[in-house]
């Protein structure tokens, strides 16, 4: 049953990603005939004349950074003023300063790490105008940057216009898909109301306050834009975010959809579809492996029930029954392969070894990854893989008909090392001080995993958590806020710099001596680079966290 479920959960987005990739390419790189339609004129009206200016990679990045700075300031102001703003039927109060910083950084960077519970702290205004808005434009930022990278690797010095790309991704990619999904979720029972909490008099005579709100709109884009920030604290485990087997299915296949299509968009813009399918296969293989392992490990019963008169079933702690068996494990694998970070079960309550699956996904961060940025991360591994191969045969390495030289390699290695550095340094500091050690819920190795998970999630811009961690403290808010910002912008800036520098070079003719990037052999090279580099960097902490947790609880 779980295997059939796995197939349905993964095969459908893979199939849908093909036409979507073609559509996304047509939107981002319109062919000449559809170029200057009414839509383009309307967009210029909305955005101003600058939308017609083609930018080099530096100008593109500057526009991206300025726009993201505006996003940051606007969201921070809205959150800081929420107690005075409208759409606040339950009278949510002011937010603490470091929480505002963390939440703003989190949503601007497409991470959606949440150190608050939505139904407790956020007004409907904040949920919609601050957070849902961010879920669109931060995802669009990722898609735009991938389009720019692809154009550069296709040999163009002018890589497009950031504002035009952003508007196109929001209007024609994210918006229609979100409307479609949100309407389906409403049909499936997800609330969409501006009324405040409902008061119920329970059958036993108590009073129950039932938080609700404009849920469907937010849930749709949080699933599609690899955002992951839910309306309610427990995210898609909450019956209002995810009421049934069917909504769970729709939400789960929405997680990897655009990230998968992004790979095809890259292939089409660069004109290297065979290369794209090689990369896609590597990513898919890793995703299937991850999901399969998670299903297997999670089918083991809770160790804590051993010897008690309780029926033997798969681990149900932190899980909801209506999604069916196996779906929580697949979701946990998919949401951390992509940088989504929404959850339909509590990751802290996964079996000790299963916890390694989401962690590994965030460490590699290239198994489809975030919308757009997932492939940008993979680009770094490709450059490193190409370089290693070039060194082995003693040729100057080439990629997309351009030489990869010292300058590019310096930037690539820097980009590669930022991610582990943020995770390992952060974990080391917090695990050895009360900043972290004083905030864990579970003791010992599992508590260490909570700290490790939090930094991995922040650096990977994922946003899920081992939520037992008491993370709404000033040190956690400031540290993970900074990690999210660094973990977002450095891995966008450096790859675009590499691609820009390559685009400025003379093309080299492809000969028989050129390393072919569209063969199964190259797939093995990339798989090897990803796994070996990932294993070398993170094996020690994996052993200290989940593995030690498993050993200490299974051997008694």
């Amino acid at each position, binding site marked *: 049953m779980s295997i059939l*479920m796995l197939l349905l959960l993964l095969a459908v987005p893979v199939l849908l990603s093909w036409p979507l990739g073609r559509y996304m390419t047509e939107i981002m790189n319109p062919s000449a005939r559809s170029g200057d339609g009414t839509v383009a004129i309307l967009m210029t009206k*909305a*955005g*101003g004349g600058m939308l017609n200016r083609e930018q080099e990679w530096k*100008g593109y990045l500057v*526009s991206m950074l300025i*726009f993201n700075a*505006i*996003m940051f300031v606007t969201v921070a102001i809205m959150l800081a003023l929420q107690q005075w703003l409208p759409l606040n039927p339950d009278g949510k109060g002011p937010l603490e300063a470091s929480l505002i910083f963390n939440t703003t950084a989190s949503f601007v960077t497409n991470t959606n790490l949440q150190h608050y519970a939505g*139904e407790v702290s956020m007004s409907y205004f904040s949920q*919609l*105008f601050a957070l849902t*808005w961010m879920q*669109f*434009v931060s995802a669009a930022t990722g898609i735009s940057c991938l389009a720019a990278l692809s154009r550069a690797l296709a040999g163009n010095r002018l890589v497009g216009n950031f504002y035009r790309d952003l*508007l196109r991704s*929001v209007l024609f990619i994210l918006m229609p898909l979100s*409307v479609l999904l949100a309407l389906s979720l*409403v049909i499936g*029972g*997800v609330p*969409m*109301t501006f009324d405040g909490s409902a*008061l*119920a*008099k*329970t*059958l036993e005579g108590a009073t129950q*306050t*039932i*938080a*609700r709100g404009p849920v*469907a*709109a937010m849930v*749709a884009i949080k699933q599609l834009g690899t955002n992951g920030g839910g309306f309610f*604290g*427990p995210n898609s485990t909450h*019956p209002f975010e995810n*009421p049934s087997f069917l909504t769970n299915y729709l939400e789960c296949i929405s997680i990897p959809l655009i990230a998968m299509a992004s790979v095809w968009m890259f292939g089409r813009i660069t004109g290297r579809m065979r290369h794209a399918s090689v990369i896609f296969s590597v990513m898919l293989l890793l995703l299937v492996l991850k999901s399969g392992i998670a299903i297997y490990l999670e089918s083991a019963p*809770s160790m804590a*029930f051993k010897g*008690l*008169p*309780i029926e033997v*079933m798969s681990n*149900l*702690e*932190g*899980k*909801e029954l209506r999604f069916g*068996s196996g779906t929580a494990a697949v979701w946990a694998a998919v949401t951390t392969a992509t940088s989504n970070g929404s959850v339909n079960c*509590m990751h*802290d*309550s996964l079996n*000790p070894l299963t916890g390694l699956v989401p962690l590994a996904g965030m460490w590699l961060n290239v198994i489809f990854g975030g919308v757009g940025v997932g492939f940008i991360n993979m680009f770094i591994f490709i450059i490193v893989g190409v370089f290693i191969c070039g060194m082995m045969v003693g040729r100057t390495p080439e990629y997309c008909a351009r030489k990869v030289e010292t300058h590019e390699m310096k930037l690539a290695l820097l980009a590669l090392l930022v991610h582990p550095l943020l995770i390992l340094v952060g974990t080391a500091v917090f695990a050895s001080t009360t900043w972290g050690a004083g905030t864990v819920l*579970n003791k010992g190795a599992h508590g260490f995993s909570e700290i490790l998970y939090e930094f991995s999630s922040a650096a990977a811009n994922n946003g899920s958590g081992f*939520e*037992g961690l008491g993370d709404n403290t000033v040190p956690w808010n400031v540290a993970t806020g900074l990690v999210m910002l660094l973990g977002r912008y450095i891995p966008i800036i450096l790859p675009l710099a590499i691609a820009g520098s390559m685009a400025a070079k003379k093309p080299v003719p492809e000969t028989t001596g050129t390393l072919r990037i569209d063969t199964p052999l190259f797939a093995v090279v990339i798989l090897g680079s990803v796994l070996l580099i990932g294993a070398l960097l993170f094996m020690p902490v994996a052993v200290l966290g989940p593995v030690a*947790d498993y050993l200490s*609880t299974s051997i008694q």
Partner: protein
Amino acid sequence: MKTNILENSGADLATSLRIALVSLLLCGGIYPLIIFGFARFVFPESASGSLLRNQAGTVVGSRLICQAFSKPGYFWPRPSAVKYDASAAGGSNLSPAGPEVRQRAMQSVKDFGADPLRPLPADLAAASGSGLDPFITLRAALFQAPRVAGARGMVLSDVETQVRRHAAGRQTLLSNEGLVNVLALNMELDAMQKNKLAPRW
């Protein structure tokens, strides 16, 4: 050619502000309104939270949200780490191999009166992710049926028939387990007895 990349920063700032405003109104305003309009007029029930009312019209809960039950005449839901607080949901976040979960499971075993000959269905010992899971498994409901029937003075087979009726239709191709909505089942039992005579407990 050396150009200053910040030479357009004024234009950049102006454009950024315009695009920010346009996208803010679109994503935070128009988009939710479209979804709200559809929900409000086509699915008004689920749009406002699938609320359930008693015969007097008072809201007694939501079909999707679990509430606390402790009287023996009601079916009991899964454990909740947030005490079924639907205004601050959440899971236990405890390790399923840890001592706290074991402690809680031992308490559940005691509360439900399970023993090695009649072991407790696992969902009744494990807290749900939201703390608001409205369902229990068919087996967990049947396990409780004798207690409920006894407390209500009903014939066991009548209660079991109701349980099975509630579990049916929830079995789809891929969710292999029959599930029972605790609140809906309890409301039904109340209604059944109200039509005959007042509950005896």
